[in-house]
């Protein structure tokens, strides 16, 4: 009987297989791809690359560009350095919160203009944290975060948690880090259908607590339950985002969520670079650290 079952199932799954097929794809016209971040009090970093045909496995960096930064009155502030590998950066100049910037990207073919406004300061504080036991081991961690939305304007936020841990390979310990999944039942964090696209990056707006303080309970599983690992500390990243950043990250998460689902309409990534892909996004970042002894 076991054999019959075994062979029946094997037969079914062998038959239900994947087969490579060729499509006559349209001619590919490469486009510029921009990935840039404007953080508060941080150096600027912008990556330029070129989109490839789907069958290409390597994306080419764009190394011949010129990237310049302008203020809201289009006065040039600086020209970014080119590292020759597609990265354009400032050595000294730092962007500020709540400021409008224009970025000009000049390629061999054309010029692109991007407008981005860095968001206002974020006010957040970790109020409490607790550790729960699971199957005899310490496995669940919960923290209470206070977020103060002082502005009556519409604001967008992002919460991420990075875990730093030591891993033993038998002889040595290696320091590692990873973004962790955040579990929450909080209404403001789960009410939007887009909230399910990523557990590592919680993206939400202030529409249910505009101008008010709110306490958010966040939980994390699996921080402690591997004998070979020991979590040393957590970093809690709370950011206020520009609208462009919020749309960009949300659409990326949505796209990645559905990317391998053949039954959905593909989702579009919402950038802010006209006639090109990608975005330059502004954020105000606040990082707090929880150390485990």
């Amino acid at each position, binding site marked *: 009987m076991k054999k019959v079952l075994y062979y029946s199932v094997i037969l079914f799954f062998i038959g239900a297989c994947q087969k*490579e097929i060729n*499509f006559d794809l349209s001619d590919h016209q490469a486009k510029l791809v921009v990935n840039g971040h404007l953080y508060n009090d941080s150096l600027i970093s912008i990556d330029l690359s070129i989109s490839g045909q*789907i*069958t290409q496995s390597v994306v080419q960096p764009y190394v011949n560009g010129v990237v310049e930064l302008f203020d809201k009155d289009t006065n040039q502030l600086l020209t970014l350095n080119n590292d020759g590998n597609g990265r354009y950066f400032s050595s000294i100049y730092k962007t500020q919160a709540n400021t409008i910037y224009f970025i000009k990207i000049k390629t061999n073919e054309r010029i692109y203009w991007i407008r981005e406004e860095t968001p206002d300061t974020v006010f957040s504080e970790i109020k409490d944290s607790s550790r729960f036991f699971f199957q005899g081991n310490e496995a669940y961690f919960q923290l209470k975060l206070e977020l103060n939305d002082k502005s009556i304007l519409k604001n967008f936020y992002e919460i991420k948690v990075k875990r730093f841990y030591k891993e033993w390979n038998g002889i040595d310990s290696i320091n590692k880090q990873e973004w962790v999944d955040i579990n929450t039942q909080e209404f403001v964090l789960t009410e939007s259908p887009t909230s399910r696209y990523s557990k590592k990056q919680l993206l939400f707006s202030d529409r249910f607590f505009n101008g008010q303080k709110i*306490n958010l309970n966040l939980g994390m599983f699996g921080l402690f339950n591997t004998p070979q690992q020991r979590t040393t500390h957590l970093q809690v990243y709370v950011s206020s985002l520009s609208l462009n950043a919020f749309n960009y990250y949300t659409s990326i998460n949505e796209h990645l969520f559905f990317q391998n689902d053949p039954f959905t309409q593909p989702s579009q990534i919402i950038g802010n670079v006209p006639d090109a892909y990608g975005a330059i996004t502004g954020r105000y970042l606040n990082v707090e650290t929880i150390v485990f002894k």
Partner: protein
Amino acid sequence: MRAFIFTLVCVLMSVCKVHSQTNVLEIPIDVKLKNATLEELLLKIESVSDVKFNYVASLLPPNKQKYVFKKVPLAILLSQVLKPHQLTYTLMFGNSIVFSPIQTSRKVGVFSGYVSDVNTGEKLINAFVIDLMTLQSTYTNEDGYYSLSLKEDSIKLMVAYVGYENQYKSVIWSKNQKIDFKLKGNFELDNQRISAYYPVDMKFKSDEFVIHSSTLKKIPMMFGESDVLKSLQLLPGVIAGNDGTIGLNVRGGGNEHNLFLLDDVPIYNPSHIYGFFSIFNSDVVKQVKLLKGGNSARYGGRLSSVIDIRTIDGNKERLKTQLSIGVLSSKISVDGPIDKSKKTTLMFSARRSYLDLFTNLLNIANVFPTNSRYFFYDINAKISHQFSANHHVTISAYTGNDVSFINNEFSIKSPTQNLKEKDRQSIFWGNSLFSIRDYHLLHPKVSAWLNLAITNYEFGNGSEYQYEETKNNRIIENKFENRFVSNINDVITSYNVQYNVNSYLKIKSGLGFTRHTFARNIRSSTNAVNVPDFFESSIQFSFEYSAYSELQLQLRSNFDLNAGVYYAAFVTNNNVFNLPQPRLSINYEPFPKFYLHYAYQRTSQFLHLLTNYSVGLPLDLWLPSTNKALPEFSDLHSTGLKYSGVKGFEFGVESFAKKLYNVIDYKDQSSYLGSETNWEDKITIGNGMARGLEFMVEKTKGKTSGWISYTISKNTRQFNEINQGKPFLYKYDRRHQLSVLINHRFSSQIDCFLSWVYASGARITLPEEIYTVNNGISLSEVFVYGERNKYQMPANHRLDFSFNFKKNKKKYTRIFSAGVYNAYNRLNPFYVIPAFNVEGNRVFKAVSLFPVLPSVNYKIVF
């Protein structure tokens, strides 16, 4: 002597007005006389058969003429040769036929009654009733009732029905007469269609196709599960969805544009197992009717087609039990009378899959250990009570569910520690309905029925987590539960009247009201401190009012017309949408056996389906029309011709052009939501256009019967916000579709069905470009998709066959079926994904789900 016999006949006929005749009149006659009198013809017939004619010679005309009949039933032959001379006939003593003059009455008499199965008492829908003398004909309605208004004294009624012996009755005229027919089933007979012998053939309804349960149960299907909806995929104009699914795309419409009716009650999601099987249990299905154009005005609410499924009422003669064991599921069906007077019948059927038992076995065998379970079940029940010959009431119920869940449990029990952990994730969906049908025969010409029904479709998912630990007198408890349920519930009431004014004119009218309730509940609870329970509930009501009226008019013996209008008004959120929907269908027979047909219909649909493009998946959401998402409507013109002049064959060609308005789709590159929040912002409305030609050749006689159907069609959509406003091909624009169905009867106990289908590949949107993004978490490769549905998947084709072995035992009948699905193991693509090949290059891969699948089914009927 002959005069004496004639007188005797008249006396006998006046005493016994109704005389049942069957055998002699069915004898096929082969006669070819170039120049002969009628008497010579009769002598010739006597010489080639056992029939004896008795007549007064002076009644017969002396003139000579040509008589050519090739295997024409005697009843038809006599009607054709006697009618011009105002003569009629009566069968006496088994094989003696007596002639007499026709005497036309001045008044019209109404001949009506029910047509039913002699063994089960089951009423037969769409049985063909004809008076062979006047050639006036009709069909029985959904309650097996017919009515003919006839003038002549001598009336020869014949009733024909698929898989049953024809029955004849001679009747003497009277004002109102009730004549019931009880037909005898005969599996030796052709079971596809009624033969083309009769002077007025089955009326040409190329837009309409009926599959009877006897055929339905034998068509080979996946896992041997006969499936109503998959059988319809073999018909012209019906484009299948993905391979193996029940998707029906009728003449350019989508699956959401089909109205599925189970005993007149709409079903919102007729699928089990994520769309691979339909919910309709073939053991209780009496008849399936597909209307793909020229619909009766009584149907409304969907754009493309009506799939009208009728279940059996229950055996009136004896209790019948059917047990069936298949690869996927088992069924039990019981039907029969529940009182001595046999006025009340019961039908009950239950089916359950055992995929979960199969996964249990896998666990035991440790082949693929899994904690996931899946099963479906459905239950049909019906009680019919005949209060009188003119009044009966039917109460029907259906419930069915699909449940899929993953259970994880963990526990430790020791003197110092007691730990228990449970985790359960589930998804479930199902339909349930309840209906009461009250049928009254108000007058031999007037029947009326009241329908009261509730139909409900529910989809939900949930997760539960429970953790309890007692250690060193310390108790830790964690608990949370989430549950999401979305459902649509309709309360329906309608009243319908059919008035058979005379044999040439019928009027049908009705009124209807439906209250739609769209509800969504989200519940979340936990025992965590500072986390309150969350409960959100939304409910929305919409009201649909409808009225219809239609005329069925036979203008001449070879020309009939069906014209009507369906009017519907939809009220939701202070918006009122209304639309009159005219319907027209014309049939004309310019030459014998050659039929022309034209139909026009406008249909509307007030409910939109937000679908994730996989046919029948439970995550589909039904939503009402709004100011942004206006009601959908369509116009369909179809023309066709049919020729049945070649004995045993029917040839049909039909063309159609359908325009769809206000159909919805997701905007370019916006994804399926899984929630109706802001759904209006995600969708766009546009138009569609479908054109096509359908061909069908059907063999109706002989041991080998079946059909070949071919459809060539083009189906496009156009939306301002999709594809830069340019028209694009619909996902299921399968340009060519060919189906072959062959049934061969080896004997009365063994037969074989074989089907082969070919369809052009479905359309698909593919990624054309790739680039890298940084979302602050990681670098990820993302795709840029090309034009909507620009590419085409490889074609689908598949061969299925099944053998059915029937054996009558003393106390029961057993039927054993064995079959093979996808006999030559064609890997039909189900979907296409980008993936990496062994060399590490990104390529496209087509994923196929169903290889060759043998199946067996064992059934006992007692």
